[in-house]
């Protein structure tokens, strides 16, 4: 008897190719865990190491300081934030590369390029905007802007990777607006948005897709 063609296998292949060619699925939950952990660490360093205060309301601490002291604080905080950004980016590239390698997939594909482009445009726009805030000494708006542009980047990127990224983006956006309203508590919202939300996202994704 002739072998019957396996139609359910056909459907599975179609679905798999459709998904893999339109979404970048090598993004690892470990990236989120790592970035979240770093952000919490950096937030604590900023709060207890650099600002040395029990309060999250750093505006109050600043009014008693001299101009050079404030400048030195700013430089330390910026360095702290940039270090986290670089390490988190390096981590997410490393974990994605590792996951792609393990699954025998390529990391540089048309869809990963689209994902990168949709992330990079709002992030670069945000970086310029934040630079303007910094130069104009509007630095109470820096953390809210970071969270808002990060949120927008993730919302856009959600189309090209796991759809959960979209919801992480929404959470970051809301955190950003809260940080803009409660301006004194920037470090608290930084830890919440970049720390806990990334951490929670990473944990959920790792358990759901890699565990």
């Amino acid at each position: 008897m002739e072998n019957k063609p396996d139609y359910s296998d056909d459907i599975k292949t179609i679905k798999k190719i459709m998904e893999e060619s339109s979404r970048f699925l090598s993004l690892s939950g470990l990236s989120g865990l790592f970035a979240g952990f770093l952000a919490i660490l950096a937030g604590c360093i900023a709060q207890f190491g650099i600002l040395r205060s029990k309060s999250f309301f750093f505006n109050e601490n600043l009014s008693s300081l001299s101009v050079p002291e404030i400048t030195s604080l700013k430089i330390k905080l910026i360095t702290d934030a940039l270090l986290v950004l670089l390490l988190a980016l390096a981590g997410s590239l490393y974990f994605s590369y590792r996951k792609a390698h393990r699954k025998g997939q390529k990391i540089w594909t048309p869809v990963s390029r689209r994902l990168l482009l949709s992330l990079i445009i709002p992030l670069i726009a945000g970086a310029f905007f934040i630079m303007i805030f910094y130069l104009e000494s509007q630095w109470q708006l820096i953390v809210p802007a970071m969270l808002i542009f990060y949120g927008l980047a993730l919302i856009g990127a959600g189309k090209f990777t796991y759809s959960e990224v979209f919801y992480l983006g929404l959470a970051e956006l809301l955190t950003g607006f809260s940080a803009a309203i409660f301006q004194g508590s920037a470090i608290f919202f930084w830890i919440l948005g970049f720390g806990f939300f990334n951490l929670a996202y990473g944990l959920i994704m790792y358990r759901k897709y890699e565990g």
Partner: protein
Amino acid sequence: MKVAISSLNKLFENRVRLGIMSVLIVNDSYDFNNLKETLDVTDGNLASHLKALEENKLIKVNKQFIGRKPNTSYSITETGVTLFRSHIKALEDIIKSQ
């Protein structure tokens, strides 16, 4: 059951063609080399199946130059979308009836 099987499109019986259509239905356009990598097939094999799909007007070919290098990309036609959708529907109907 017989009706369902006869509604399967002969053009899509081949795995490579099924793969090409699956990629093109979710992407505006895709170039030759990326198709080759995604589907893991040889140049000749991919080219002959692309040709067959093109001749049946299920996909369109766009040739352009990127710098001085020629680049051939493919996109699905409206006919292609309709036929491929009904092929998937037919496959699903058969599986359900089994």
